[in-house]
């Protein structure tokens, strides 16, 4: 149950970013932006020859008081950043991993669409639906 999910392109610009409590969007955008530094740090830590060995799931990038930020990077340097509510202690690491996998799958599906130009904002409805299903159900 994420609070904010973002897909960042290789050049570190957002392809897709959505948060559930829409009023605090700016805060989440900022958190995602700052977490990109941590992502780059983790990517470069392993060296360039280890791209294959590098784990796609980066894990907890950094925790704040209210939120925890998780990262996932694909082999094409497309990053998925997920912000979850820190109070949700029942959220296990495996669940985060599964959510990232779903994200990755959906992103792959979006990529497969010939009408999608890499680098465009993602407008796919299927992707939106999948992300919505992962977001916190704040009614």
């Amino acid at each position, binding site marked *: 149950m994420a609070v904010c999910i973002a897909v960042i392109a290789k050049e570190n610009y957002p392809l897709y970013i959505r948060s559930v409590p829409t009023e605090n969007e700016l805060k989440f955008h900022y958190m995602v932006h700052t977490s990109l530094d941590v992502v780059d740090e983790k990517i470069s830590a392993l060296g360039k020859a280890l791209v294959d060995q590098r784990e796609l799931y980066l894990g907890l990038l950094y925790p704040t008081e209210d939120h925890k930020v998780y990262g996932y990077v694909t082999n094409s340097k497309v990053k998925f950043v997920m912000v979850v509510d820190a109070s949700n202690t029942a959220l296990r690491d495996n669940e985060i991993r599964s959510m990232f996998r779903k994200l990755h*799958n959906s992103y792959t*599906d979006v990529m497969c669409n010939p*009408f999608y130009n890499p680098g465009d904002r993602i407008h796919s409805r*299927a992707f939106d639906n999948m992300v919505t299903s992962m977001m916190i159900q704040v009614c």
Partner: protein
Amino acid sequence: MEGLTLSDAEQKYYSDLFSYCDIESTKKVAANGRVLELFRAAQLPNEVVLQIKELCGAKRLGYFGRSQFYIALKLVAVAQSGLPLRVESINTVKELPLPRFVASKNEQESRHAAPYSSDSENQGSYSGVIPPPPGRGQVKKGSISHDAVQPRTSTDQQEPASPVVSPQQSPPASPHPWRKHNRHPSGGNSERPLTGPGPFWSPFGEAQSGSSAADTVWSGHSPPPPQENWVSFADTPPTSTLLAMHPASVQDQTTVRTVASATTANEIRRQSSSYDDPWKITDEQRQYYVNQFKTIQPDLNGFIPGSAAKEFFTKSKLPILELSHIWELSDFDKDGALTLDEFCAAFHLVVARKNGYDLPEKLPESLMPKLIDLEDSADVGDQPGEVGYSGSPAEAPPSKSPSMPSLNQTWPELNQSSEQWETFSERSSSSQTLTQFDSNIAPADPDTAIVYPVPIRMTPSKIHMQEMELKRTGSDHNNPTSPLLVKPPDLSEENKLNSSVKFASGNTVDGYSSSDSFTSDPEQIGNNVNRQRSHSGTSPDNTAPPPPPPRPQPSHSRSSSLDMNRTFTVTTGQQQAGVVAHPPAVPPRPQPSQAPGPIVHRPVDADGLITHTSTSPQQIPEQPNFADFSQFEVFTASSVNEEQDDEAEKHPEALPVEKSSDPASSLRGAKTESKIEEKTAASAPANVSKGTTPLAPPPKPVRRRLKSEDELRPEVDEHTQKTGVLAAVLASQPSIPRSVGKDKKAIQASIRRNKETNTVLARLNSELQQQLKDVLEERISLEVQLEQLRPFSHL
């Protein structure tokens, strides 16, 4: 919901409508889609519709169950009659005309209503007939006027609530003739095929309602084919009478439908492509799609790459976003390429979109590239309730494109399983994601945590054993680790008896100090207990003039120890003195040299016993204790010897301890040494040296064993050592009274000795207690570590 009483006509009508709306035959209708169209077709203001929905409870439930639906229909009728909407009005208003629905779907309903209400002969035909889904399809075409929402209801609604669907007309193969109509338009362009259905639908509506709009739609299509179909349909079972309504009306209207207005045609197209029915691809359409496919990919079984498809569909001048969505919908297997079916679905969606239909969120089942070509079958089947039209499908097949000849037979099944397909499609899309990675998720399941070996603690058991022994001895258990201490001499007699009995029983444990029990496995608890008793017995043994028959040293719980015991226990009785089993074999007492023969034996035996106790984790250590006690006894008998015994005991204890320190855990050794040092200080070293030498070898292996077994419980060994010492000390105690009567000097000496022993024992006691605390703390810390490690293993 209040009880709803419906007249027969109403019942039929409502059931038909419900079946019409119950696309998925789930016995409940979502509060949207056809139901919405239905209500819109009722031509009631929105507020009234909302009110109806609330009254019938659909809002509460979130969906229309059968009862709610019926109530809603009744309320619609009430509203249409101009009566205020009240819950009570459901049953109170009698003679209520059937609700009329003008919307596309409602057209059908109205049509149905007509026969129902009119109770014309058609009713008979309608009985049990569900609103012709195929008719619906047609209706949809006709009801274009309604919202872009594709539901059939729109088409139905379009058909005016002309109750007069003259059933005389043979039940048209409504879908089919219309489809054929579609084909009629000829598939010149992509739009054509869609228009086909449209006009078909509209005529129905017009036929029903007589609306020109619908008729115009039909105008473009020549009646003959439909009529032919109708005729054929007439042969169909009466269930298709409803359909007949449509064709009949169509026929009537055919003349009117002379001109197909482009708008209506578009509407029809929209409708045709909007819902499952609308989404059906007519044969003509399909043919057109296939032709287009061939232009890109000659091989019909091949794929169209994404890029080529992109170029092709870009020509339709739809926005990229919509094309992207269409692609997502149509690329069923997400392979980036389009098969023939996928291409047709995509093409159909493009056509629909161009005609104004909104793209669905998920691929309609009729467009899904299933194993069987659903597109053709979809034309036939609408969902449940189309039982009556099973015949029509049979007729439709012939009209189907030759590419799907086999579909005809499968249509009925397809129709019925359309819902299944829908669900399948939904499932498949989700399963796609599932198959990709979920398999990897499974291993991460925390439940599959690494099974880590849970160390079995011996200490607790031993502690328990100690406690048990203590309890059994019934003595004060101030120091759980020093059961021997707890065994006052008074108890020793009891223990002695017990031990003797046990000895008789061959308990090797007897004679083994309780300390041995500590070091031994839980299984030997009993033995330990026995040992305890034996220990206590040893003390009494010592006290008793004749030491009890040598404990069956051979009866060592441990086979190894048995051997050792036997080898070491020369004298029987004395060996029992292994009261307190020093984990390390108690050093052979020097007493042999000093004490009288038996004593000598005893020390030796004691040493041996001690060594035995050390060797056998459980019982061997006890033997020396017994031996010690026996020595004590002997020594007490001879007051002089007592001191020596004490010393000897201490020395032997010290010696084996020293020896044990080598191989055994240093900890134990250190502790024992510390204790022994105290003892040795009080005792003469001479004997010790003697006693220890013969026993040097055994203690070592014993200690090793003990160490290996008690890695976690070094303290226990220490405890045992202490207990051994204590036992020795205690053993000496009883001897004191004996000496009392002998010499004052002896008494005094013994008193002094006793005091010294007391202090030593007290110190030993404190040390043992400290060790016990340490052990417990270690245990707690280990347990905490286990707890901490457990969750980690899940990650």
